């Protein structure tokens, strides 16, 4: 399912966090969003998830404006993994993942066997099935992040939005999550800080000061000039073992 944004702007207390952002993400793509801290990645992701009404512009899901859809119907197609979502409740891993079924349940549509199967599969997908009975506050940061991703997967979304999902993970889990995300047969929009990891996305959008300053294939948009302008670093390309190119960064 396509997700597109037209001329999105967002302001808080007179500060412009997002200005005139337009973008289109085709079905099945993994679209990476990169940019320095405070460049508007998270704000853009929130608007794409329908969590706020843009000051101008609109978000279209398969051609329908989100503003005209009910939150419940949006959630049946779009799932969001926030950067930090914490709770002090005594809640088990499996119960957290089960929350992902919320958009499909109602006071009249009760929890069913198929919901159990979906939750089981989501736990397996993120390699947390063995911790299903653990309490949330006993988990490490990386485990919590994986549970959140499983919760989002339990929504069986057509579009998955991830806000720096690798932030708290050790390198092994970073790679396994990225691998998992890449293999999902759905549209993924992911914000990342690690530019080398961003290179593996199908397409990249580069955010700077609330604007989308570049969109395209990773190799085309992450140019030395762009890295200098947006991130304030110099980079050189090194040849990796299997033909991949790896970036190394220096202070500008």
């Amino acid at each position, binding site marked *: 399912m396509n997700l597109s944004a037209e001329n999105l702007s967002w302001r808080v207390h007179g500060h412009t966090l997002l200005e005139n952002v337009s973008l289109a993400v085709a079905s099945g793509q993994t679209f990476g969003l990169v940019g320095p801290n405070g460049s508007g990645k998270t704000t853009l992701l929130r608007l794409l998830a329908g*969590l706020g009404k843009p000051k101008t512009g609109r978000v279209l899901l398969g051609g329908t404006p989100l503003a005209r859809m009910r939150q419940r119907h*949006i959630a049946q197609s779009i799932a969001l993994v926030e950067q930090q979502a*914490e709770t002090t*409740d*005594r809640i088990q891993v499996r*119960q957290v993942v089960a929350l*992902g079924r*919320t958009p499909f349940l109602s006071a009249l549509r009760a929890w069913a066997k198929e919901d159990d199967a979906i939750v089981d599969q989501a736990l397996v997908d993120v390699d947390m099935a063995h911790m299903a009975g653990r309490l949330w*506050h006993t988990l490490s940061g990386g485990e919590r992040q994986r549970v959140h991703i499983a919760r989002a997967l339990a929504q069986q979304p057509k579009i998955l939005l991830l806000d720096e999902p690798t932030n708290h993970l050790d390198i092994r889990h970073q790679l396994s999550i990225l691998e998992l995300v890449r293999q999902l047969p759905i549209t993924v929009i992911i914000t990342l800080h690690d530019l080398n990891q961003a290179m593996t996305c199908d397409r990249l959008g580069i955010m700077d000061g609330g604007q989308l300053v570049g969109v395209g294939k990773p190799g085309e948009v992450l140019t030395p000039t762009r890295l200098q302008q947006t991130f304030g670093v110099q980079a050189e390309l090194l040849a990796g073992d299997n033909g991949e190119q790896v970036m190394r960064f220096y202070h500008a």
Partner: protein
Amino acid sequence: MTFIRPHLNGCWLAPPMLLAALLAGTAIGETSISVDTILKVLANQLWGAEYAVDRIDAGIIWNYRLSRAVVAACCGASLALAGVVLQALLRNPLADPYLMGISAGASTGAVAVMVAGLGAGALTLSAGAFAGAGLAFGLVVLLAHAASSPTGGGRATQAAGAIILAGIAGSQLFNALTAFIIAKSANAEQARGIMFWLLGNLSGVRWADAALALPAALGGLLICLWHRRALDAFTFGADSAASMGIAVRPIRALLIIAMALVTAVMVSMVGAIGFVGLVIPHAMRFIVGSQHTRLVPASALAGALFLIGADILSRVIVPGQVLPIGVVTSLIGAPAFALILVRGRSAP
């Protein structure tokens, strides 16, 4: 898996426990009445049976104690539910109608109606209490919002502190307003009555009150049960709930208004009773977990039992004298609250 499915084991325990509590509430008091007599009176009243019972006993049981126990149960259930809902929606373990100034605001509203003499029926009192409760809650939330910074990772913890501070300010303000209204407009006899009622008092309660309390409590319970999944979805905050398809603003508004209304109805009848909304939900989370499918009915039941129990205690603890029930709930609730605070520190 078993622990996800709405488990209704143990549900069958609720009616007998409630009935036993109501019976105890009716039997125990200054004059003890045997269960046998109570059952006879009930049979007479409910099914028109014609057992011979002492007319004074019958009057005490039917007109005085049973209605009082029923209202106590409704009140306890409602306050506990208000606590559950406020804690879930505000993501704040300390949220509670009493601490957040809702009860104080409701008292002010009710007292204003009483003193102004706007035909002090149960409905007008409730309406006044609701206006006061809404005003107080709005003020407290605005103050808390202004006091906690809108950005930053420590937002939840900051907000937790801010809302309690705002609640203290709000409670003080509305208690002062209440005192002002009493001092300015009430005569000495009115003032004495109102002061006693303010601490929580069930002695004036009759069936007319129960007729209002029962639908209010049941309505509150039904609304909470209907929205149990929405309440669950707030586990990780409002944004997370929205991303799982909850229409956050309308649902939050509906639930908070419903709880303010229910609280107002109860306060207008029995005064501001503290700690029920705070302690009962926490105790129940510990026993049945934090999923609202179970937490909502468990808290309603426990709140009802707790307040019937507190009412019994208030009648027997000092022989020949009835303590305000708010004194009893605070005597039990404050230490329990301290325990929660200390325990809460060990959980990250």
